[in-house]
């Protein structure tokens, strides 16, 4: 069964690569080719269409229709929409289209569009629109370089968008757009901030022609809200599974995503894309060792891969693997120095060495190469925080969330920065956004709690709620326990305070981490137990305190003296009511 499926996938992908390449959608073609190679090895040659070496010569042969017919039967049920597409792709391209394609490949977009101005075919139409769009993008980029402000902020827009929108809308309302035309229209609508319409159009595109990964990615960029996803009307297709898995990762539903990738792995056992995405999911789950192993495996099979390596460098950064990070940085530079990912890796390397200026320099370079490169914005924000340059940090983080509002790191960074600026209302809001994205991440809840505690807000109840929440999500650093105890102590709720102090004590004993928090806990518990009358326990706490430095030691000694006196006193007056001693 699996081999039948993989044979079918092989046919689909081979054809799709040709379609995509013909239309200048190189990124999508590359992705499809990666998946094609990711399929299991062919067991027998007669089961599927001829292997790759023949397919080139097949292009030049004129007698293709018969063979193509039997291949379409293998594709199975489905895409009536691509029927006429196939017809057009069968025909020899006319000369003008060939010329335009040559211009397009040489990045002479305006020339390509001009050459195609009179052509009528769907393929020519798409190539013309796409070339026009890219020409506008190119112009926009140039304008940004010419007129940009300090951080590359500029309000340059693609000047072709309005015209393209009008032209595509006219055809769309007549129902005359094919799958690629709809993709183009979706891209334009997205740029024009008409997101709901863009979603509808892109759905139509991927339903009519599912093999265009670029269209799926565009759709993914629009799924900023988990509520949008179920409203999309998507036909069942294995490409949709790739999409859903990728969206899951984007929305931080990492375990769901992992499950999907596991299922896809059965179909595409040799796909590097799946491997890289799985590694990313593990990284998001803060399962660094697993992720690191997967990335190493990826690099073994594809040593010159750059995509996703910035995440690998993040892992190495978190694990503080200087040597490995340095090695990765050097290797990436040799592979391709001017790739945003490479610059990011180098930025991480310098950041780990605490050379923040240099790190910023490289993140900036990454952003020059790709202004929409999300992680570089976020990482640059972190560097600016380190450098105490809060306005720049805020700007960088803002840019990150503008590009992708699902980047919890940027929201968290914004919160931190505003906390530094003593603007707790702002900080609180950004932390809240972060918790919405990662509701099970204790760090965010702790940060929120801290905001509620500030003098300006002074909302202790809310703070307690946040810390409790952090606690129930396995707060590794133990901040929540201590904070909770302190808060309850301040609010005069000694019982609750004692409960949390005890818990914190246990945790710290387990970790063998004995800092100031430990002292605080002991001192409080000593006092508490004394007041409660369990003097022996109180004595025990005080004894432990005697091992510590000066102020604590003195306090402990005073407490012990008090306990002794009470002990003597109670020996004399056994019926004394102890309640009055509680503070």
């Amino acid at each position, binding site marked *: 069964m699996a081999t039948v499926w993989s044979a079918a996938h092989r046919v689909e992908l081979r054809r799709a690569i040709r379609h995509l390449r013909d239309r200048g959608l190189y990124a999508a073609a590359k992705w499809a080719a990666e998946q094609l190679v990711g399929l299991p090895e062919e067991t027998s040659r007669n089961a599927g269409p001829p292997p790759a070496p023949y397919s080139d010569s097949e292009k030049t042969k004129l007698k293709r229709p018969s063979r193509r017919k039997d291949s379409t039967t293998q594709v199975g049920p489905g895409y009536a929409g691509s029927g006429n597409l196939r017809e057009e792709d069968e025909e020899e391209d006319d000369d003008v289209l060939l010329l335009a394609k040559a211009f397009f490949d040489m990045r002479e977009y305006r020339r390509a569009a001009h050459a195609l101005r009179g052509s009528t075919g769907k393929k020519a139409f798409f190539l013309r629109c796409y070339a026009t769009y890219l020409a506008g993008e190119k112009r926009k980029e140039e304008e940004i370089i010419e007129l940009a402000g300090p951080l590359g902020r500029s*309000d340059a*827009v693609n000047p072709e968008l*309005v*015209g393209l929108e*009008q032209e595509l*809308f006219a055809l769309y309302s007549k129902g005359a757009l094919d799958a690629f035309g709809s993709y183009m229209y979706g891209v334009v609508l997205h*740029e*024009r*901030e*008409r997101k709901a319409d863009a979603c509808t159009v892109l759905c139509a595109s991927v339903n009519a022609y599912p093999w265009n990964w670029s269209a799926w990615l565009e759709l993914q960029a629009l799924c*900023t*809200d*988990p*509520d949008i996803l179920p409203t999309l009307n998507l036909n069942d297709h294995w490409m949709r599974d790739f999409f859903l898995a990728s969206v899951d990762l984007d929305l931080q539903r990492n375990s769901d995503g992992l499950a999907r990738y596991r299922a896809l792995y059965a179909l595409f056992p040799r796909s590097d894309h799946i491997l890289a995405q799985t590694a990313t999911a593990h990284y998001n789950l803060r399962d660094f060792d697993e992720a690191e192993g997967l990335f190493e495996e990826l690099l073994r099979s594809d040593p010159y891969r750059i995509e996703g390596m910035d995440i690998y460098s993040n892992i190495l950064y978190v694990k503080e693997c200087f040597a490995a990070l340095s090695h990765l940085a050097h290797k990436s530079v040799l592979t391709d120095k001017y790739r945003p990912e490479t610059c990011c890796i180098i930025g991480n390397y310098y950041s780990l060495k605490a050379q923040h200026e240099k790190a910023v320099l490289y993140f900036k370079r990454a952003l020059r190469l790709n202004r929409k490169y999300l992680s570089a914005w976020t990482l640059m924000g972190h560097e600016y925080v380190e450098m105490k340059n809060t306005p720049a940090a805020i700007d960088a983080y*803002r840019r990150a969330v*503008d590009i992708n*509002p*699902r980047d919890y790191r940027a929201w968290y960074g914004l919160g931190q920065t505003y906390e530094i600026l003593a603007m707790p*209302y*702002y900080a*609180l*809001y950004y932390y*809240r*956004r972060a*918790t*919405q*994205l990662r*509701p099970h991440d204790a760090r965010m809840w702790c940060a929120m709690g801290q905001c*509620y505690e500030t003098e300006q*807000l002074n*909302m202790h*109840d*809310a703070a307690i*709620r946040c810390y409790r*929440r952090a606690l129930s999500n396995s707060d590794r650093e133990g901040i929540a326990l201590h904070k909770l105890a302190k808060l309850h102590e301040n609010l005069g709720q000694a019982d609750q305070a004692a409960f949390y102090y005890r818990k914190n004590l246990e945790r710290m004993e387990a970790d063998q981490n004995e800092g100031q928090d430990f002292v605080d806990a002991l001192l409080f518990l000593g006092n508490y137990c004394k007041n409660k009358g369990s003097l022996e326990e109180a004595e025990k706490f005080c004894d432990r305190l005697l091992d510590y430095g000066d102020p604590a030691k003195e306090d402990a000694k005073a407490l012990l003296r008090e306990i002794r006196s009470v002990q003597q006193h109670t020996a004399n007056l056994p019926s004394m009511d102890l309640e009055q001693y509680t503070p």
Partner: protein
Amino acid sequence: MREGEVEKLRAVVRDCLGKHLYSSAIFFADKLATLAGNATQDLYMQAQALYLGKQYRRALHLLRRHHLVSADLRFRYLAAKCLEEVKEWDECLAMLGDGEVDEEGNVQMTDDQDTEFLDRDVEEREINIGAAICLLRGRAFEALENRARALRWFKAALKADPYCYEAFEHLVDNHMLTSDEEASLLYSLKFDPEDHWLSLLYSCRAKKYGQLAAIESKFVELEREPDESQLEDDSVGCSLKDNNDVVACRADLLYHHGEFQRCYDTTKALLEKDPYHLTCMPLHIGAALELGRKNELFLRAHNLVQEYPNKAIAWFAVGCYYYCIRQFDHARRYFCKATTLEGSFAPAWLGFGNAYAAQDESDQAMAAYRTAARLFAGCHLPALCIGMEYLRTNNLNLAEQFLMQAKSICSTDPVVYNELGVMAFRNKDYEAAARWLRKALSLAPPPLTEAWEPTVVNLAHTLRKLKSYVEAISMYEKALALYPKGASTYAALGFTHHLQGSTGKAIDFYHKALGLKSDDTFTAEMLTTALTEECTRLSSAPDSQFFSLGVGLP
């Protein structure tokens, strides 16, 4: 001398005139007149040759010396033409004699000599000399700045002969008549049945303030091939499809309806065919200005100045270029130059005013607009501009007066309704504002373009003031679809959400607004307020909300 030789000499003179060899023509005509004993016919030919050879005084003298001026209407006309050329307007009028004309341009026939010509049986179509005389009177009165009488005579010329195109051109291009007056004048013209095409073309050339559908059907008829339908007399085609004037006319229509891109495409194609089509040029330049094609403007202006340094249009184009690159000082200077070259060139006056207005020089702007309003009574734009300027300087009563005047001249321009809406908004009459603005949007050509984004935003503001928040929000969203970079639109959208109590969304939109324009203090303040409110609300909210599990991301 023999009769045959005289005939030959006559032929030579005629041929010289035909070949524009005026000096030769004058020489031979003079000999001819002497040889043939000063026959009236030959003297006329000599005068004609002198006129064409630009020897106006001599021609006049010739006519006077032979007492020909009173003999024949043709001589009198020629003499008047000579006086026109030497700019002796009073003399010219005196030469033409006293004619009376009523408001509608009906001539009281006092000259019985006219009949001679009217009755003459002509083989070929000629322009009625009466019409030519009326036209000349009109020109003279115009030069004497008696516009009312000039207008009457132009009308009379056109009525005397619909083929007298110059009169029509004068009336229409100089916006002398209002739309209704134009319609009634055209209606009163007596076209021969076979001249149906001319009547159609005239009505298309007239003001574009009418119903779009009616004009469109006229165009279709003008452009259709005749053999397509022979059913009815009044819908035969005129097969003028690719005629430059018809194309220019269509471009004019597109321009008036704000479809600048299509207008630009049309005029560009036309100017490639006929680079010196001057009626089309203002449209082309206007559309290029609206679209911000500064490069095109630059080249076009350069070429025009080189080729027509004495035409207003050339300097108008230069002014438009400077206006486009926002150098209003220069723009003003060149618009001014254009108006001094040709006082009756309406676009230059408006550009002059606009350039002043762009520099906040209200008084000068207003002066320019007022001149335009006086000169071009049939055009609503000066009144509109005056109204807008008063609106800008917050003089609402006067603004209303002028805007209403603009509306009465042209009841189909959406911009007028937009301004009326803004005025009502300023007067805090939100109901009326909403009504005007809706009317403006209904008149704007679908699909809406970025140019109408302000109107949509205005309507949204009005709806917000009327507390219909849901509709206001949908309007703001519509505006953002037209122009996604509107920081103030985002701020207003956030504010509306804020008013509605959905602080979460408000915060999000305030952020967007500040992301596009970070120095907006109002939005920054509102954001702080919203964040504080949100914080207070959530801190006492039940768990499900506090932990925001039920709340989706905006």
